[in-house]
């Protein structure tokens, strides 16, 4: 079990998150809070349970999955690239091979804000409908961008009077509205700014799309010292000793951490799933397996 912070958060809704209760899980969080790490670990938990898992990155670039696994697939959907391939598929390919170099794609995406984002969601919907995987984990773009992405189909359903876009928008909206098909997971760290931003994103998401957060992951949780009353332990130690200074540091950070954990738990009405800080800057396979065990003990992931 992960070490919990000194003041445990009050449980408001004791529902345990079920990893397989939705086919698409969207991972949302501020940049640098560890969305990709969470996606990686959840994918590992999924394949361990014998499920076919597809991880989709919302940006292009490298992505280190834990291991080669026949049950695991990976793809990236960068909005600009998705738009260009959509335009190519719809007859613009023969006319302008150089869609991006002629700048047409950027004109279209500026004229219809969100068109590229909609197409990303449409691709995910397609995968979901065709049951390409049992669980699709979408490592979404950073929170600000994500809100725009999720609001897109609604706006576009009105703008695009007819044609392929309208149908896409409606089908994506149906998926967003069905909790069995899609759920949203939040990732944050228990510090003031990231927690407050997550709460803001979560509330806006509820307001604009009616989507309730399914689970809240708190990443990089520092182990707390006070299961045996840490304060008493450091009495009598030399205040200049490394061990004393380290204890004071951890105690101060843990206190702040539990304050913001509580704030987040209350706002989300969820018991946060805690992911302990690992003393490394890059997770290896062993770290992922360890964190998968820790998370598995806090969620439901039975085949």
């Amino acid at each position: 079990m992960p070490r919990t912070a000194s003041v445990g958060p009050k449980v408001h809704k004791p529902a345990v998150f079920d990893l397989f209760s939705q086919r698409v899980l969207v991972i949302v969080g501020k940049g640098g809070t560890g969305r990709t790490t969470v996606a990686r670990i959840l994918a590992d938990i999924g394949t361990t349970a014998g499920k076919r898992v597809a991880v989709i990155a919302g940006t292009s670039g490298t992505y280190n999955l834990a291991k080669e696994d026949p049950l695991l697939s990976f793809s990236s959907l960068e909005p600009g690239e998705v738009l260009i391939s959509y335009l190519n598929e719809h007859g613009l390919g023969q006319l302008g091979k150089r869609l991006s170099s002629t700048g047409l794609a950027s004109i279209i995406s500026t004229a219809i804000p969100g068109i590229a984002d909609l197409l990303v969601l449409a691709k995910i919907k397609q995968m979901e409908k065709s049951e390409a995987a049992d669980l699709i984990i979408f490592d979404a773009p950073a929170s600000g961008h994500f809100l725009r992405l999720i609001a897109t189909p609604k706006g576009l359903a009105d703008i695009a009077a007819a044609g392929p876009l309208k149908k896409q928008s409606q089908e994506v909206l149906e998926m967003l509205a069905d909790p069995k098909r899609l759920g949203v997971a939040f990732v944050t760290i228990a510090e003031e700014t990231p927690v407050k931003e997550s709460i803001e994103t979560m509330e806006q998401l509820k307001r604009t799309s009616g989507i309730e957060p399914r689970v809240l992951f708190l990443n990089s949780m520092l182990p707390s010292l006070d299961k045996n009353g840490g304060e008493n332990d450091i009495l009598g130690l030399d205040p200049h000793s490394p061990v004393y200074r380290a204890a004071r540091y951890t105690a101060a950070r843990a206190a702040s951490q539990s304050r913001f954990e509580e704030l987040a738990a209350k706002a989300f009405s969820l018991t946060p799933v805690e992911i302990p800080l690992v003393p490394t800057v890059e997770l290896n396979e062993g770290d992922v397996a360890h964190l998968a065990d820790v998370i598995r003990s806090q969620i439901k992931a039975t085949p």
Partner: protein
Amino acid sequence: MLESSKVIICIGTGGVGKTTTAAALGYMAAKAGRHVCVVTIDPAKRLADAMGISELNNTPRKIQTSSDLDLWAVMLDPNSTFDELVQKFATSPEQVEKIFHNSIYHNLTENLSGTQEYMAMEKLHELASDSRFDLLVVDTPPARNAIEFLNAPKRLIGFLENRVFKLLISPTQSIFRPVTLATRILLRTISKVVGAQVVSDAVEFFQAFEGMEAGFKERAAEVQNLLAQDTTSFVLVTGTHKDTIDEALYFASRLDEFDLAVDLVISNRVTPAFGEIESDPQPETPKELMENLDFLVRLRSAELTQLSRLSDVISGDRHILVPLLPHDIGSLGEIQEIGELMVDSASTYVNSVSP
């Protein structure tokens, strides 16, 4: 750098503490007697409140400090900056009206990547000739890739100079009949796929912007020139995680293309040094506390290994490590604390970069 630079540009990916770093550098420079303006974009709320710039406002405001420093801050509003630019370069009030009413123009700042960066540069250009300030500290917009900041002018100008639409609105189009035909088919297809409104909006947009590209281009060249000055410094801001270091290395490698160089690297949120376990002489220390120290020592060592990758692009004496504080940074006092840690760390922390 704080004494002689005229412009300091803070570059880095989102979430590494760029705004805090810019504010702290500004604070320390003002303390050294400079007349400073911090240009920021979308700061976290508490930080904005601390600097007294909680609303979008293109006008610099003086920050209320206890020691009455000459420290100002401005929170950039990209939309109104763009409006001002249009007003400056337009040939007639009618042209301004036409542009302001175009829907593509409305979407430009939010949806064309690079536009916010361009506006940050524009503001920089404007403030550089403001006699109230002798140092500008710029916090660049949060981009997925920090290099967007330098690519911004090229992108926007490329957008404004779109060939397809330029041909379409060109008065001499009849001479280029074949080209026009192909273009027309292209436009018809676009109408079919994404709607006719897009095409008419785009045509209207490029007609309205006709003749203004030159002004934008000239301006971009001036900004480029300002960036290339010896008195302009680039500060790379990173965290300790691998991805922020990767991005910093990538950025540094691309700076060459622009004839620029990194002057300083600031790595935030580094686990502090507490000293080694062996140096602890107390035998009856609880096991749990020993483990805690061991954990932090290992964490710091992993971070330093990661940070040492930056030694290829910056020498050790220009790499500042700012320790992670047990509390959030959101008040002027805390900004000052970070600023002092930065200046201190020039001597205390730097030597420990290589593990």
